[in-house]
C-alpha cells in the first residue's frame, strides 16, 4: 500500500467552550475542518462529550493575533505606578468597610 500522504490538511480552528450561560467562553483546544460548520461539529464531538455545555465557538486559528511571553513584559506591563487605577488608592466611606 502506498503511504497516504495525499490527504489535505484542513485549516485549524480554535475551540472555545462556554460551560453555562453567562459564563465566559474558554479555550478548550483545536480541530481541523474544511469550514466553520464542520469545525463546530468536530468541536462538539471532541470537546463536548460530557455536559453541561451551553455554547461553542470556533475561530480559524490564523485569525487569532496574540502576544508572546517575550513581548508581554513590556506590552502588558501593568504600570505599578498607576495606583490611582485601583479602588484601594482612595479612601472610601467607613460604613462600607465594616461589612
Amino acid at each position, binding site marked *: *500500500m502506498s*503511504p*497516504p*500522504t495525499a*490527504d*489535505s*490538511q*484542513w485549516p*485549524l480552528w480554535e475551540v472555545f467552550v462556554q460551560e453555562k450561560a453567562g459564563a465566559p467562553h474558554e479555550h*478548550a*483546544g*483545536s*480541530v*481541523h*475542518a*474544511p*469550514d466553520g*460548520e*464542520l469545525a463546530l461539529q468536530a468541536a462538539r*464531538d*471532541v470537546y463536548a*462529550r*460530557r455536559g453541561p455545555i451551553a455554547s461553542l465557538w470556533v475561530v480559524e486559528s490564523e485569525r487569532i493575533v*496574540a502576544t*508572546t*511571553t*517575550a513581548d508581554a513584559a513590556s506590552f502588558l506591563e501593568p504600570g505599578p505606578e498607576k495606583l490611582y487605577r485601583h479602588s484601594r488608592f482612595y479612601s472610601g466611606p467607613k460604613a462600607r468597610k465594616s461589612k
Partner: protein
Amino acid sequence: MDDAERERAFQARIDAGETIEPGDWMPDAYRGQLIRMMSQHAHSEVVGTLPEGNWITRAPTLRRKQALLAKVQDEAGHGLYLYGAVETLGVTREELISSLLAGRAKYSNIFNYPTLSWADVGVIGWLVDGAAIVNQTTLTKCSYGPYSRTMIRICKEELFHERQGFELVAVLAAGTPAQREMAQSAVDRWWWPVLMMFGPPDDASPHSEQLLRWRVKVKSNDELRQWFVDLAVPQVHEIGLEVPDPGLEFDAKTGHWRTGTIDWDEFWRVIRGGGLCNRDRLAARRRAHEEGRWVREAAEAWAKKRPQ
C-alpha cells in the same frame, strides 16, 4: 542574547514554575523531546482504541456496551486533543499521521498485546488506564502549557475508564468459577506489561535527567512505577485475585510493595516489533484511514460547495 543566555533564561523560567507557551523561545532539543513524547502519546490513544474496539460487538450487556463505546470514543478524542497540542510545536497533523501509518512512529507497547477475553477489556480500563492516569496526573504539572492543559482534560475522563474497568473485573471475580478464572488469567497476562508501561528503569533511561530538569517529565519511570504498584496491589487483593509475582513483598518499613524482577528483554523485543499484535495494529490503522477517505472527501466537497 545568544543561545546559551537564552537557554539559561529558559531554564530559569522553568525552575520558577512558569509555563512555556507555543510562541515562546525554547531550545530545539526541548521542542524535539516534546514532539517525540506527545506524538507517541497521541498515537497510543488512537492505537489503544483497537484492542478494545474488538470487543464492542461482543459486550455481554447493553450497559457494558454503552460504557465501552463511550470509552473508545473518549480515547479517539484524547488522540485528537494530543495531536492538536503537538501541532502547536510546529509539526503538521499530516506528518504525525503519516509517520504512524508508515510504521516510523512509536506508541505504547501495551497495545501490542492481544485482548483474548472479555476480562481483558476490564483489565485494560482498570490497570492499563490506571497506570496511564498515574503518569498523566504528574504530567498535568509539566512545563509545556498545551500538554499540561491537555493532561488535565484527559485525566478527568480517564477516571471513568478506570472505574468501569475495575467494576467489570470485580463482577467477574465474584462470579462463577469460570468467570473468576477468566479475570485471574487477564490479570496474569497484563500485570507485567502494565508495569513496563512506565518505561525502562531509571538507570537505563538516558534522557530522564534532562527531561526532569525541563519538567517535560515530572517523576522518573521508577518513581511512577512504584506509585502505581502501591495503588494497584491492594486493589487486586480487594477483589480476591492474585498478583502474578512470586517475588512480590510488602516492605513494612517503607510502606511500599516491592515487585520481583521485570523481564526487560520482553519489553525490548515487543518494542522492536516482536509483539503478538504489532503488525495487526498498524494494518488496522491503515485500513481505517483508507476506509475513512470518502468521509474526508465528502466533507471537503461539501465545504467547497457552500458559500463561505
